[in-house]
């Protein structure tokens, strides 16, 4: 099938020829998954399996995407549309993944904690409030950086000030969405220099966001005593922001690859699916952040 001339694919859907990548990628996933299960149970082989699987999967994806890039001149607009639809539905699945954690946050905050406080029999003296780390968890001390004496008591924790790093991060991410759009417009107007500059700024803003997020985590763990184990507040805070940070990392990586491809001149004003897919993904992590900023940090 794949041996047809480029003319052929103007009227025919591109059905790629057979490939060993999916099979080998599945083996890599097997190693990562089984290695992960071994790791959390303290087996020494776990990290080794994960390393083998991780390197295997990363290399496979590199080779796979390289082949797709090489084939892409043969893809007609129908294939392009399939890719777009695929990306859109993938982002929908990501939205639902975050919805599970936002749902958990809602349930814990508005139902579980009040119910625990209602039953005097079980946890006498526990009062419903948010943030809460539960009846046996650490107690909240202050709405900012606690004093040294406060931190020395191991069962106390402080909160991240939403108007400090989180606010900067909000502005950074929102700005990055704008710069990305400027870059996209430049691409459509065939202005390659502008495309590259604004895209590079976007990636830099993404990295800056991540750096601030790491700073915030260090502050939370070392100064505020706020950890993943700080009851339901710590759980929801770190799981939501953590998964978001992971997605920002992925999105920045995608945009970085897109940037390299822009520099190589892979895209035309009409055909640049990967650019748009990366942009959609970036806007998606942006929107999730706005949700986090409101529901996790401010409220």
């Amino acid at each position, binding site marked *: 099938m794949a041996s047809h001339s480029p003319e052929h694919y103007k009227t025919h859907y591109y059905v790629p020829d057979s*490939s060993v990548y999916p*099979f080998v990628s599945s083996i890599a996933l097997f190693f990562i998954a089984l290695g992960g299960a071994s790791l*959390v149970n303290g087996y020494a082989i776990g990290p080794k399996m994960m390393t083998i699987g991780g390197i295997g999967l990363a290399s496979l994806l590199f080779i796979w995407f390289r082949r797709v890039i090489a084939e892409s001149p043969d893809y007609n607009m129908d294939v392009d549309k399939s890719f777009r639809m695929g990306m859109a539905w993938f982002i929908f699945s990501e939205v*639902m993944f975050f919805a599970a954690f936002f749902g958990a946050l809602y349930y814990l905050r508005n139902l*579980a904690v009040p119910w625990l406080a209602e039953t005097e029999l079980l946890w006498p003296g526990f009062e419903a409030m948010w943030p809460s780390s539960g009846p046996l968890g650490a107690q909240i001390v202050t709405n900012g950086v606690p004093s040294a004496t406060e931190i020395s008591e191991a069962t106390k924790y402080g909160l991240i000030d939403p108007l400090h790093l989180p606010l900067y991060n909000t502005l950074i991410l929102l700005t990055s969405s704008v710069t990305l759009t400027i870059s996209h417009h430049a691409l459509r107007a065939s202005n390659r220099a502008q495309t590259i500059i604004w895209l590079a700024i976007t990636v830099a803003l993404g990295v800056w966001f991540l750096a601030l997020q790491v700073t915030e985590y260090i502050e939370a763990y070392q100064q505020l005593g706020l950890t993943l184990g700080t009851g339901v507040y710590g759980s929801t805070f770190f799981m939501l922001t953590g998964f978001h940070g992971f997605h920002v990392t992925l999105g920045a990586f995608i945009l970085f690859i897109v940037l390299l491809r822009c520099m190589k001149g892979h895209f035309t004003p009409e055909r640049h699916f990967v650019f748009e897919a990366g942009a959609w993904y970036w806007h998606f992590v942006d929107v999730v952040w706005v949700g986090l900023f409101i529901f996790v940090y401010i409220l």
Partner: protein
Amino acid sequence: MSDTAVAHGHDHAHDHDHDHDHDHKPTGFRRWFMSTNHKDIGTLYLIFSLTMLFLGGAMALVIRAELFQPGLQFVDPHFFNQMTTMHALIMVFGAVMPGFVGFANWMVPLMVGAPDMALPRMNNWSFWILPFAFSILLLSFFVPGGAPAAGWTLYAPLTVQGGMSVDMAIVAIHMMGISSIMGAINIIVTTLNMRAPGMTLMKMPMFVWTWLITAFLLIAVMPVFAGAVTMLLTDRHFGTAFFNPAGGGDPVLFQHIFWFFGHPEVYIMILPAFGIISQIIPTFARKPLFGYSSMVFATAAIAFLSFIVWAHHMFTVGMPLQGELFFMYATMLISVPTGVKVFNWVTTMWRGSMTFETPMLYAIGVVFLFTMGGLSGLMLAITPADFQYHDTYFVVAHFHYVLFSGAVMAMMGGTFYWLPKWCGHMYNETLGKWHFWLTTIFFNITFFPQHFLGLAGMPRRYADYPIQFTEFNQWSTVGAFGLGISQLLFVYIIVSTVRGGKKATTEVWDNPEGLEWTVPSPAPFHTFDEPPVVK
């Protein structure tokens, strides 16, 4: 547009002999492990599903053997619990879901007139993840403490305390989720983007419609399940407190998230079955499907309602009264679109020139038996009644009527219906009918008595029971072994049909509707290289 397509079609007919040279199939490893062909990948899915059906079935027979008599005979209770858990996980994620994906792979491109699935390499990846995911799940039998034994629903807090097998189940579920989501994206994109000219959405065969909606459900809920098991994993190993009241959490939260996935999941397992039935009945009643558009809207309505009924699985967990009432009424509402479907099938048969080949027997069997499962579901939907039925064998009987005599029997009917198209040979009609009757009769012997057991109060998931439940359990066990052994006949029929038999014609049946019946039997390796035109 359609003029040029017609011209292409003529050219294509002219070229057919040359095309045959192009039709070279890869062989061996290249064909089966590196495939980008929807038919081969569909076959792989179907073989995988059948293998898992036997594996899960063998576990069911261990359960039934133990329950033949009160007291402990063959296995210890912990192993019994591993059997109930693994039987369900394997049947749900290994047999039923991949089975339907196999049907979708084979039939959706043929039915919409596409050359292949929209994203063929990803299609192969969706499949190949599954054998590895199930290897991990099955390896859990050999770790300390054995396989997961907390029930397929993996409820916290029991699973927070379990051994390494729970982690293996979690990572296996993550892999299955990746596979399902990629498979579902592929089906949606194929359906929306690759239809032949003239094939409007409202001209699509019902099977394609049901799979389109099923794929939407999959993308919407598999990530939620991934979220639930991720919270479980972090509660187990990283000190989070999602399901731990001491940290402000709540084990009931797991149930809510699980069933937000779990209820759409049961429709994921039944909607494609509805699709298959909606293809079979018109063919053998020799009438078009009655109420096509109402069928489409009923499917969409069921999908919508599936998102707002999840808590009917947990009426006894202690919810506020308003919650119990809302979920009761919402659940009962589902019987309206489901009823529309059943009436449409019956009305399609009304005054049709009916014949009763094996696929039709299956279709009629499904309409009868699934409806019984639907009615027991209606009983379970009534909150106060459910307090009595909850976690009894009545529930077990209910979901086996919808899952076995709904989903699995629909797939068996679909297999007989399309097998001639897949392999080019007719199956042996006498043996096919034998298989139908053996399956149906033994199925009812197995599961009908479980209604009585449940109503009398026998709880599910126990290795032992009081002596007054003995007789019904013995009926059930005898039926289960008969049901299991009858499936060997199914394998025999499939294998012998693939190997030889009467040549099937292009149409196979008497003037059936649909593009799949316009390509030769067996369907050539590449079909619809040039899009056909649908008027």
